């Protein structure tokens, strides 16, 4: 590859990236409008909750946690594959990273921002949420450090901080690079945000030193945050929750759902911005393999969980697991098995893995499956507690359904805004790839483009 070709390729990358930042078309606006509408509906539902009380939901004794906590766990899970995968790809110097790293990291931050809303909505007296935080106060009281909920707050706060910094640091060179190519408010924004990064050798050197630290911290943190979230459940005495398998199970589930979300988003990005050259069939192939592997892990976990419950002595625990599969929520249970264990098996075929529609469909199924999986274990364990007399059932109320959908609206809205405001491909890294590898850019006409 000669210098001219390289310069051409570099120009291409910059152009393609800038293309994603151009004034959006009507479809974008429509989509954004839909997402804003969903978010607004959620705002209304939350206002209702605050005004009238949590009775607006259909939670009850004994099912005191319902779809809101489900959504919290789900979105924390979604956040997983972003930073974690991106950091792993960084360390393995994978050619995948330039393509998927940025959107995955953004997805993480946005997902945590979404997830964090649910525990707030869910509080009986949301206006005192800050009592959960350790801050010096005249009451002389700290939060209860025995409580997994407090660990949860620390874990999630750490994770969102590191993820945001990781995303931001990775974006510094791009902001600096692109600030010269854009105009008006975007130029000012990029200039300010690039913190004067000029791409000098010393700056790059510092960045190269700092970046792995964040990446290195992000990986164990990603594992820990979902382990800690799982302890909200595993640290209790509730049959079906109280289990040592929960931490790895949650992490696996999180990576699984996060990956599915990443695939859906990348498929949409590629489709919308014709980024076929950057987000390639090979990438989908690799992600599909990982998705398949996680699906198998999930199946393993389900079987382990079920058999260990059956082998353990507690009749309450046995009853919960049998009830999940046969009771009032059996439909959800089998939907979960179908979406999380069976549908991903299609990915054993190479053609499926490399097909955009197929992978998008499978991933969507996994997302549905994972949401309901969270719902299933949150609700069924509470509904089928130790005391049969005090059992109950729970079906989300309208306000709760709206709030759950609003989570997706809020998530989608932030993501749509992100891809229009910030570069969703890593220009610098793609360029590095261009210069380091040869040939970096595959020809535009590739057989799999036909699937797109």
């Amino acid at each position, binding site marked *: 590859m000669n210098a001219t070709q390289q310069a051409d390729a570099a120009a291409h990358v910059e152009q393609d990236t800038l293309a994603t930042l151009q004034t959006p078309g009507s479809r974008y606006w429509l989509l954004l409008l839909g997402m804003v509408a969903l978010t607004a509906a959620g705002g209304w539902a939350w206002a209702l909750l605050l005004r*009238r*009380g*949590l*009775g607006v939901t*259909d*939670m*009850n*004794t*004994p*099912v*005191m*946690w319902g779809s809101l906590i489900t959504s919290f766990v789900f979105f924390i899970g979604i956040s997983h594959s972003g930073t974690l995968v991106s950091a792993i790809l960084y360390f393995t110097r994978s050619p995948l990273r330039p393509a998927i790293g940025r959107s995955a990291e953004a997805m993480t931050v946005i997902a945590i921002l979404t997830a964090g809303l649910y*525990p707030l909505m*869910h*509080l*009986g*007296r*949301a206006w*005192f*949420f800050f*009592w*959960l935080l350790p801050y010096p106060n005249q009451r002389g*009281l700290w*939060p*209860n450090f*025995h*409580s*997994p*909920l*407090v660990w949860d*707050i620390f874990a999630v706060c750490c994770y969102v901080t590191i993820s945001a910094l990781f995303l931001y640091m990775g974006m510094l060179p791009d902001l600096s690079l692109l600030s010269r190519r854009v105009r008006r408010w975007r130029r000012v924004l990029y200039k300010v945000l690039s913190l004067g990064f000029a791409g000098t050798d010393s700056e790059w050197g510092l960045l190269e030193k700092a970046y792995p630290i964040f990446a290195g911290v992000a990986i164990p943190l990603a594992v820990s945050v979902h382990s800690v979230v799982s302890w*909200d459940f595993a*640290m*209790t*005495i*509730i049959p079906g929750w109280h289990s040592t398998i929960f931490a790895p199970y949650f992490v696996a589930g999180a990576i699984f759902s996060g990956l599915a979300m990443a695939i859906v988003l990348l498929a949409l990005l590629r489709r919308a911005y014709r980024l076929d050259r950057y987000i390639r069939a090979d990438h989908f192939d690799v992600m599909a393999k990982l998705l398949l592997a996680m699906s198998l892990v999930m199946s393993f976990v389900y079987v382990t969980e079920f058999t260990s419950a059956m082998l353990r002595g*507690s*009749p*309450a625990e046995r*009853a919960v697991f049998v009830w999940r599969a046969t009771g009032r929520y059996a439909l959800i249970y089998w939907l979960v098995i179908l979406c999380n264990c069976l549908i991903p098996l299609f990915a054993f075929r190479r053609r499926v893995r490399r097909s955009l529609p197929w992978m998008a469909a499978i991933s969507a199924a996994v997302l549905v499956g994972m949401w309901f999986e969270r719902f299933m274990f949150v609700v069924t364990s*509470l509904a089928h*507690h*130790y*005391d*049969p*007399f*005090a*059992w*109950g*059932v729970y079906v989300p109320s309208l306000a709760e359904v709206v709030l759950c959908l609003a989570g997706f609206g809020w998530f989608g809205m932030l993501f749509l805004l992100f891809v229009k405001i910030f570069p969703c491909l890593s220009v610098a890294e793609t360029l590095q790839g261009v210069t380091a590898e040869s040939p970096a850019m595959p020809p535009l006409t590739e057989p799999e483009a036909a699937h797109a």
Partner: protein
Amino acid sequence: MSHEQRSPRSLSRRSFFAQAGLLGATGALAACSQRVPRFIVPYLVPADDVVPGVPVGYRSICRGCPASCGLTAQVMNGRAIKLEGNPEHPASAGALCLVGQAAIEELYAPERLTGPLAPPAGGAPHAVPIDWTEANRRFADGLRQAIDHGREVVVLTRPESGALRELMGQWLTALGQPAGNVVVFDPAEPIWLREAARFTFGIDAQPLWILEAARTVLSIGADLVEDYGSPVEYGRALAAIRANRQRRFVYAGSRLSLTAASATGRIAIQPGHEMGFVLALLGAVLTHTGSSGMLPAGARTRLIQLLQEEPHATAAQNCGVPSSRVRDLARALTDAGPGLVVGPGRVAAGEDATALAQAVAVLNLAIGAMGRTVQFAEPAAPALSAADLVQHADAGRVGALVIHHADPVGLGPVYDALGHALAKIPFVAAIGCRLDETARRAHLVLADHHPLESWGDATVQTGVHGFQQPVMTPLHNTRAAADVLIDAAGQLGRTGGLPSGTFAELMQDRLDRNRLAHGGEFAEATPPAASPDIADGALDQLAAWRPPVGTGQVPILLATPSLRHPGGIRSASPLVQEVPDALTSVAWSGWAELHPNLARARSLETGDEIELVTAAGRTRLPVFVTPGIHETAVAVPLPDATALLGPAGSLRGRVGPVTFRATGRRLTLPQIGHSLDQQGRHLAHEVPDDAELPARAAPKPTGRRRWAIAVDLDRCDGCGACVAACYVENNCAVVGPEEIARGRDMAWIRIQRFYTGSPDEPRVVFLPVMCQQCTDAPCEPVCPAYATYHTDEGLNAQIYNRCIGTRFCSNNCAYSARRFNWFDWPRPTPANLGLNPAVTVRSRGVMEKCTFCVQRIRRAEERAKLEKRQVREGEVVPACAQTCAAQALIFGDLDDPRSRISELARSGRAYRLLEELNTEPGVVYLARHEERV
């Protein structure tokens, strides 16, 4: 600042008028507000003996039902806040039932009449408030017209036994009427028992069952706890029988009622076959006793002959009870000390009830129970019957009717005739506390005091004279019924024989002042009377007995009594309705009980709505499938069954054939229980009756107090008084049927019902569950805000204003004992005045639960500290334990080896709920004895 600018204080003419207008309007609006009490504390300068915040007890009597139990009203800051049983009163012995506990709610009910009302005038849809001068004038006018036209004045009253009942007679006499122009409205009176007593012994009175004196008691469908006016007295008696291994209580009936659940043995009888069973038993007794017994020889011979005649012989043969069982029972009733046969109760009473009651009376005679375990009440004062009133009214002879706390119209078709008769009476005045269905048809509504605001007395049993005294100033513009009567007589100038002065003065003269603080005069129990002689032709009724029509057909409708609705009249109290029926766990709503086999045959499940049709009417109810009902019966609680009962004038429980069909609707029942049985969990323990259990090791004293409560499952009869007491004491919210159906009841203690035993012979165990105050409480570590923590007295405390409502604690509670405030529950004025000032009212968004009545613990501790001593054993009693008639709940310090609770905790029957979780609860359960027959 320029000179032209006005000073901000100066007032322009315009703004003066604007502000004056605003002030005037506000003042006018404020003046228009309703006459409701507006002060948190009703007085500025209290009486000398009132210490703010310290409750003062006043003795009075409960008027929730005719049992008239003695009570102690706890009055704090001038307002009654809680009712407790009077420990000196022989019937209540310190306890009150569910209805008694809820009676205080009526005092502060927003629906209560706040003053006299006149009927709507000039097309207005609602009755209009009038003042008392006007009300008295109208009342006197109405009476004058009746008297002037030579028509009768009649009083229709609820059962009254004291001075007021006497006064009614005197008043009628003063008006120139017969003193017997009183109709006692007591729809639930088992008249078949009185009739049988009249036919058999020539005594026109209700029998009294002396359970205490009997060793073996057999109930023929008699639901003593539910239906005999005093769940307190009978609950205590049944618990005493269960606790004594030498005694037996056998229940023979078609339904596993609360009473049947408390029995030591049960015999299932197909509805309509009760007579067969009694005859079979009679035969066995006669064979067994030989020539002994109280039965005269002639009657005995006639009886033996009768038992061999048809249809009696066939009925006895086909009663469906194994003859060995009948023989055993006959032996137990005759040999093992005094026996007693109670009944027939309401669910056994069909059209042949009188004959059946006579058979039972003869049986009691044969086993030698008459006079020893069966006595007779004093015959009631002469009175008109409801039928007489209808007849007189139809004939146009009644000119004025004074209704005193009676609502026949509200009972539906049963009293249709009476309802129609009201329209033919020119002047109807209703004295009462509520604008009920009957009061709506009256020409004048006179608002009476609540019993807690007025004087009175009641003589229920011989020698038991309970005093009723006002415990607080009346809340509303009400007047005592007696004063209204006396006033009217004065206006008519007919005061002859009537006391001068007010009823309050009269009562203060009449009641012994020295006994007022004790709540009444209670004589020693009367010695057993001699057995009454059997009347001539006494057996004719029995001989004329024919099997009831329709018993061959299935199913039979049983209208079952409920202690929540005394006398079969639906309770108007939200609290009574909120406390679930212990057997079905259904609150507020009615239901129709079906046996699983019958339900399966008709493809029905719990919650399916069915339409029931009898000869008299039809109604729609949700199905409740339960093994506690005979396969050939459908049971409906009385208040809901009234539409299905004919105009019988008496609420008989075995109504007759019923047909039903599914309407296709499915309802979510407002029930708190979701499982009929324990699903293999070992929650409610049962031990064989003869088991000798090794005592449990005593826990090591720690030197620190450990409050604990013992729950004796052998004694609990599921009456629900503890639940109601807890609601009142702890300001628990009443949330209504919709919220209960959504699983949001706010009860701190619930009675769990589990069916045990085989499906063919089910038993019932009641398991009261409250916060277990665990030593190692799972709720405590999970709260992020430290809103729940452990006190050094072993209590698991909840700090409401620290709680932010994560609800993690409730999730992690293995006993599901915590309740969350999903809303700010409404407490409309003046209901808020009845709140216990010692207990915080929880706002929405916070968790709450049983505190072991920590306010009572603190009060006792403060008292002990002032007196420089330790808290004594028995000094602290939580509201639930205080009102438990069966004494199933015992509270105390578990760390004190001499306390009653620690003694019980060492008993072989002691266990804790879900012991395997290692939560070390502070609630000790004592296993229930299985049945003994």
